[in-house]
């Protein structure tokens, strides 16, 4: 028997714990662990515990049993500062072993101190155990000042099992902790075992009355909203409405927690259970407000196989490749595009922040129902804009790129078309709205927006775009947004934020933008010369009306939901969906910027070359993923820290609609190619399909939940549109290949 145990140790346990590896992974984990611990505690003043009366001291605590006294305040302050200094030293690897020992000893005291006051917390324990493991390890042999010094003296750190066992032991502590948590949920306080041992009655008890299959989790989701130290999004309350979902989450939680030890031995378990546990804790942080600083993040880091990643990066010579790829973008056109994109992005982000600031001010100053009405009117204006512009703006960009000598004529045609079309919209809207059964205030607001829309439609954005001078127009737009935000702030400060006031601010903003852009264009870019041509206008309209219809139809999934919800489910729900759509609009605007810079290049001479398309695909993928991640994070921050809790029901819809917006932009870029290939109608068909899918599904989904249902319909519809555009492009590609056209992926450029 003894022999077999030793054999097991030699064959299984030793290779598991002492598998040789380099010092890099463990060193990096030390750096991250102590840095994160420092970040967690840097703002915590432990000396405050000395102020609490000994009447609150728990006599059953380990401190009491071991005779460890609560220190006086000045001494506690010194201990606190010393501990934080030791954390920094341990993180950077300065006198690593000593600094970790100090941080362990003082950390045990300081992190353990709160548990003497009536309640034992649970997140610090695992951190302390991990600190103990690291202190006994050789984790200072990489990513540290000590290691740097030793390397300078010629010391080499060979791969060793010394760099593996600390990671495995942290895994062990982590896995037991989660197993214990799952077990505790399953059997509660254990009272069920105290009576007569195990019987089938107990099985029935667990199934019927235990943590798994009753409303326990539902109540947990609800009760955290009653705690007055946290401001939670309403998503938890939505989940609580579904007993089935709560039961699913309860069962999943216990299964994942109790299976955690399997991750010690199985790669599959590591790849599935650890991310599941991470997501579960992320959900706890977001929906229950539990440990929002995510204190176990450094423990999760131990599960990531950093070694192979580092090796892969070294093997693949990624840094060199990135440099080469970066250099390949530095053509003259690439530099110009990058410069324009930088300024345009910066200014538009600032402008959008101002616009969002205005929206947040309105949510603060208005009741939810009033805000619902205003945001509905603002979204209606988007349709006035689409009709007022008559779809001519992208055509103008295309025509100027192809016929720069006709710039004056095209500028004149643009002005005439947009002025006439938007004026007709304003007149028609005024008539309809004064006949419609709405309140006078709402009527005035919509009328003001419709007349202000004339300025919005005639703005000179396409002229700046076509001449690669986008930043100039963006400066004016940014200042207008800033002035509008200032006006809204003044109105809020004086409690005078009314429907008419909001209408005047928005109309004024558009007017100021267009006049400012016109002046800037005239004096700094190119002087206007009136060159009217009826034939040119007819030609433009012939091309633009499908674009107009396309733009109207394409905006339905992202902006029409608020109007539907407003008139079928009321202003309160409209406020939620309107807010979500407002955030989505900001996202679309920022993502669309790249399109504005890229579109002239797509329409240019290299747009259909294979190398250009490859570069574009890489750039767009990175851009979409990055912007979506930033948008999700930003939305969460907005709903957690800025918006009133009354509006927190818009968080999930906003996340869903952002996804919809992303799909719209993917389809838009594909659509740009179809426009270049003169397949505008195909773009229109794609958008029509998207809109029809949205309208066909939104009413059904809205019955399940007005706000979430609308967002789900948006995601569904935009997915359909993106797939259609993709298929159309593929069909076009196949078609051109078959007839041997010498572009569209067949040419190898050297631009």
């Amino acid at each position: 028997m003894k022999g077999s145990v030793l054999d097991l140790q030699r064959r299984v346990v030793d290779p598991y714990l002492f598998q040789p590896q380099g010092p890099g992974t463990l060193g990096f984990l030390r750096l991250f662990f102590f840095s994160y611990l420092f970040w967690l505690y840097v703002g915590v003043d432990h000396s405050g515990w000395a102020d609490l009366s000994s009447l609150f001291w728990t006599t059953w605590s380990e401190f009491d049993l071991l005779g460890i006294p609560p220190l006086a305040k000045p001494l506690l302050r010194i201990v606190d500062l010393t501990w934080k200094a030791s954390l920094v030293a341990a993180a950077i690897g300065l006198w690593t072993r000593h600094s970790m020992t100090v941080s362990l000893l003082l950390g045990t005291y300081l992190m353990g101190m709160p548990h003497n006051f009536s309640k034992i917390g649970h997140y610090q324990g695992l951190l302390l155990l991990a600190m103990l493991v690291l202190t006994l390890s050789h984790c200072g042999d990489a990513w540290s000042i000590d290691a740097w010094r030793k390397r300078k003296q010629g010391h080499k750190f060979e791969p060793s099992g010394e760099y593996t066992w600390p990671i495995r032991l942290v895994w062990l502590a982590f896995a037991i902790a989660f197993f214990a948590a799952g077990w505790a949920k399953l059997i509660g306080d254990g009272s069920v075992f105290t009576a007569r041992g195990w019987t089938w009655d107990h099985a029935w008890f667990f199934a019927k009355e235990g943590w798994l299959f009753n409303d326990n989790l539902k109540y947990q989701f609800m009760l955290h909203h009653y705690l007055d130290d946290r401001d939670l999004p309403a998503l938890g309350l939505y989940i609580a409405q579904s007993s089935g979902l709560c039961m699913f989450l309860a069962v999943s939680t216990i299964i994942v927690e109790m299976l955690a030890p399997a991750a010690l031995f199985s790669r599959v378990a590591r790849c599935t259970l650890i991310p599941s546990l991470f997501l579960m804790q992320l959900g706890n942080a977001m929906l229950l407000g539990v440990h929002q600083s995510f204190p176990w993040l450094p423990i999760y880091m131990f599960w990531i196989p950093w070694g192979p990643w580092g090796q892969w990066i070294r093997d693949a010579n990624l840094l060199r490749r990135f440099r080469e790829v970066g250099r390949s973008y530095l053509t003259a056109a690439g530099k110009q595009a990058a410069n324009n994109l930088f300024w345009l992005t910066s200014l538009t982000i600032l402008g959008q922040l101002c616009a969002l600031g205005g929206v947040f001010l309105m949510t603060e100053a208005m009741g939810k129902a009033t805000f619902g009405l205003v945001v509905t009117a603002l979204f209606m204006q988007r349709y006035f804009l689409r009709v007022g512009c008559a779809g001519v703006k992208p055509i103008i960009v295309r025509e100027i790129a192809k016929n720069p000598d006709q710039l004056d004529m095209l500028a004149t045609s643009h002005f005439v078309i947009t002025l006439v079309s938007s004026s007709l919209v304003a007149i028609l809207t005024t008539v309809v709205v004064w006949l419609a059964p709405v309140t006078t205030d709402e009527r005035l607001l919509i009328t003001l927006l419709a007349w202000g829309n004339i300025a919005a439609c005639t703005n000179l954005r396409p002229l700046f775009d076509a001449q690669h001078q986008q930043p100039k127009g963006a400066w004016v737009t940014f200042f207008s947004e800033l002035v509008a935000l200032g006006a809204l702030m003044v109105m809020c400060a004086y409690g005078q934020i009314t429907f008419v006031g909001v209408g005047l601010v928005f109309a004024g903003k558009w007017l100021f933008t267009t006049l400012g852009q016109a002046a800037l264009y005239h004096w700094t870019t190119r002087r206007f010369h009136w060159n009217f041509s009826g034939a040119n206008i007819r030609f433009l309209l012939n091309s633009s009306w499908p674009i107009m219809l396309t733009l109207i139809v394409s905006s339905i999934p992202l902006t029409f939901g608020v109007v539907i919800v407003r008139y079928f489910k009321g202003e309160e729900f409209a406020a939620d969906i309107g807010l979500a759509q407002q955030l989505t609009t900001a996202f679309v605007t920022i993502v669309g910027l790249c399109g504005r810079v890229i579109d002239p290049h797509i329409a240019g001479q290299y747009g259909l070359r294979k190398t250009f398309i490859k570069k574009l695909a890489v750039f767009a993928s990175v851009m979409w993923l990055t912007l979506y991640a930033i948008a999700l994070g930003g939305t969460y921050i907005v709903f957690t820290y800025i918006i009133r809790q009354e509006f927190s029901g818009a968080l999930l819809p906003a996340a869903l609609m952002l996804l919809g917006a992303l799909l719209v932009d993917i389809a838009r870029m594909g659509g740009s190619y179809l426009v270049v290939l003169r397949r505008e109608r195909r773009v229109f068909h794609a958008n029509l399909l998207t809109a029809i899918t949205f309208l066909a599904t939104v009413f059904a989904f809205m019955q399940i939940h007005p706000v979430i249902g609308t967002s789900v319909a948006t995601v569904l519809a935009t997915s359909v549109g993106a797939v259609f555009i993709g298929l159309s492009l593929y069909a076009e590609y196949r078609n051109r290949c078959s007839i041997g056209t010498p572009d569209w992926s067949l040419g190898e450029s050297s631009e």
Partner: protein
Amino acid sequence: MAESPQPSESKPSANKISLSRRSIVYSLAALLLAGHLIDIVFFTEHWPFSRYPMYSRLMSEPKLTKVRVYGVTDDGEVPLTAEPHFPPLTMSRLSAVVSRMGEYRNDSTKMSAAMGNLATIYERARRAGKHDGPKLKFLRVYAVSWTLKPWADNIEQPDKRVLLVEAQCSEG
């Protein structure tokens, strides 16, 4: 890191690590395992080990009772929270600390000393500019009960509020 090739049996990688060193590692592993298992099996808590019982307590009905601290000014009562009013307590620990005062309900000296301590912490934080709460005349502890509603729209209208203890705040 985790999945690099297994060492060959004839040349085990662990042999470079001394026996004493390996003993330390095994002892540490045993400590981690045993420390947790004792708490799991015996339903105890020995920090830093634990059985991690958070959220394991069953809620069989949608009822919630929390102990809450209120300050009394000339204008009425104001609810107080752990952060920022009673540093370094967190909300859950403030509730635990205040609940703990139930042990002193038959000892008025200890009870008033405990309440006085909380009032002092509040006032010290106020004077240090850690919060902008008003100067208090009294400190009150209530047991506040709710019936949980699906949209939590009765947060400001609890079913019941029972005064547990009240203490005068010193003038100093």
